[in-house]
């Protein structure tokens, strides 16, 4: 029971920490550190919640979460635990419910991740196939593909063997030579650092719980930080100003018609694009090295602590 209480405490702590991180100002100064922290907190929340439910539900074994789980696997065939718990009345039933909830949560999270991955792969394959058929090459954008469309768009299509940066004719129209280079550098940074994989757990959560506002706003938050990571990479080669004006030109070239229903997600006090522009034009102090180290260290400690609590036979 001690481990169940401690794990619940950690799970609640993770939720509070995520909310704090969502509101904090420092992530824009150190987007890499912030993204890693988001991932650590998300993972910690999932593992500690499942652990707490298991530790409580299997407390009759007095083996903790992991030991209890192993014992359950042995007993599952005979159904001994089930009958013993049912004989105990209400408390026994709550134990069984906790275990069922833990298994369901684990299943939903795992299924969400896998189905998200499969879906993304399918969309990408189709997209790749079509790009090969209709996009052309252009001397102004070496290595990228050009789509002959008047709207402004630039994006990357990740893949192990065939990753691709794609830009539309409309985007080439509004950007000058150096802005174009900055945009390409930004997209290549996404591909090089496989930002799509970084975002995948969050997008799969969003897919599993599409109506949970909190998850969606956390997802948006991480997605924006990842854009900032790519901006930081791009401005090593190009100037901040070029990247910022490129962003503004893209936005100003719009608005692309947005279907009803998609608007809600965009209603933010300050749009993500504007925050990126602000950050590029008026760079604040970067997150100090020691602060980053402390944050990373705490994340690692958190995960280690949860692992220990899973093993705690109390």
């Amino acid at each position, binding site marked *: 029971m001690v481990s169940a209480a401690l794990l619940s405490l950690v799970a609640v702590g993770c939720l509070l920490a995520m909310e704090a991180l969502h509101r904090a100002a420092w992530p824009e100064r150190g987007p890499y550190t912030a993204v890693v922290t988001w991932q650590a907190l998300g993972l910690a929340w999932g593992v500690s919640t499942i652990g707490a439910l298991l530790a409580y539900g299997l407390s009759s074994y007095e083996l903790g979460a992991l030991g209890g789980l192993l014992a359950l696997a042995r007993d599952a065939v005979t159904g001994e635990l089930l009958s013993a718990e049912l004989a105990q009345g209400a408390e026994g039933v709550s134990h069984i419910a906790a275990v069922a909830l833990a298994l369901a949560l684990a299943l939903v999270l795992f299924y969400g991740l896998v189905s998200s991955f499969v*879906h993304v792969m399918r*969309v990408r394959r189709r997209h790749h196939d079509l790009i090969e058929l209709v996009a052309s090459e252009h001397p102004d954008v070496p290595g990228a593909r050009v*789509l002959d469309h008047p709207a402004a768009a630039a994006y990357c299509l990740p893949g192990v063997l065939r990753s691709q940066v794609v830009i539309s004719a409309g985007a080439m129209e509004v950007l000058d030579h150096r802005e174009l280079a900055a945009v390409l550098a930004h997209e290549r940074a996404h591909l090089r650092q496989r930002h799509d994989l970084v975002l995948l757990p969050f997008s799969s959560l969003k897919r599993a719980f599409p109506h949970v506002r909190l998850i969606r706003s956390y997802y948006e938050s991480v997605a924006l930080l990842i854009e900032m990571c790519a901006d930081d990479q791009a401005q090593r080669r190009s100037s901040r100003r070029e990247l910022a004006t490129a962003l503004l030109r893209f*936005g100003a070239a719009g*608005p692309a018609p*947005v279907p009803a229903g998609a608007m809600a997600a965009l209603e933010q006090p300050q749009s993500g*694009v504007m925050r990126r522009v602000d950050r590029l034009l008026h760079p604040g102090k970067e997150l100090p090295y020691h602060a980053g180290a402390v944050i990373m260290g705490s994340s690692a400690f958190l995960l280690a602590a949860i692992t220990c609590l899973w093993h705690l036979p109390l």
Partner: protein
Amino acid sequence: MTRLGELERAVMDVLWAKNEPMTVREVGKALAERDLAHTTVMTVLDRLAKKKVVTRAREGRAWRYRPAASREAYVSELMFDALGQTGDRDAALAAFVQSMDGKEAEALRRALAETEQSRN
């Protein structure tokens, strides 16, 4: 681009240029300067059919192939995906800037004007 990919593209260009369904032989003839074997053209059309970008219908003893959609329709589909308007902005593709509403675009236009002014 792979050789097959390049061939697929050439075959699609032929099909798009012609407004009616074509047989394997006709496609091969249209690409005569490439001197392709009949089976090669067949393979390419088969691959395109598997990718669902061409449809085929039997006419007499031969299959006739035609594009499943126009080139413009595919370009639009790609742009639609890229701008995240397909309803799932799932970062399958990370767009440089996602599509935005009119108010946002207006704010960006103003900011752009200010930025350009301060540069001059």
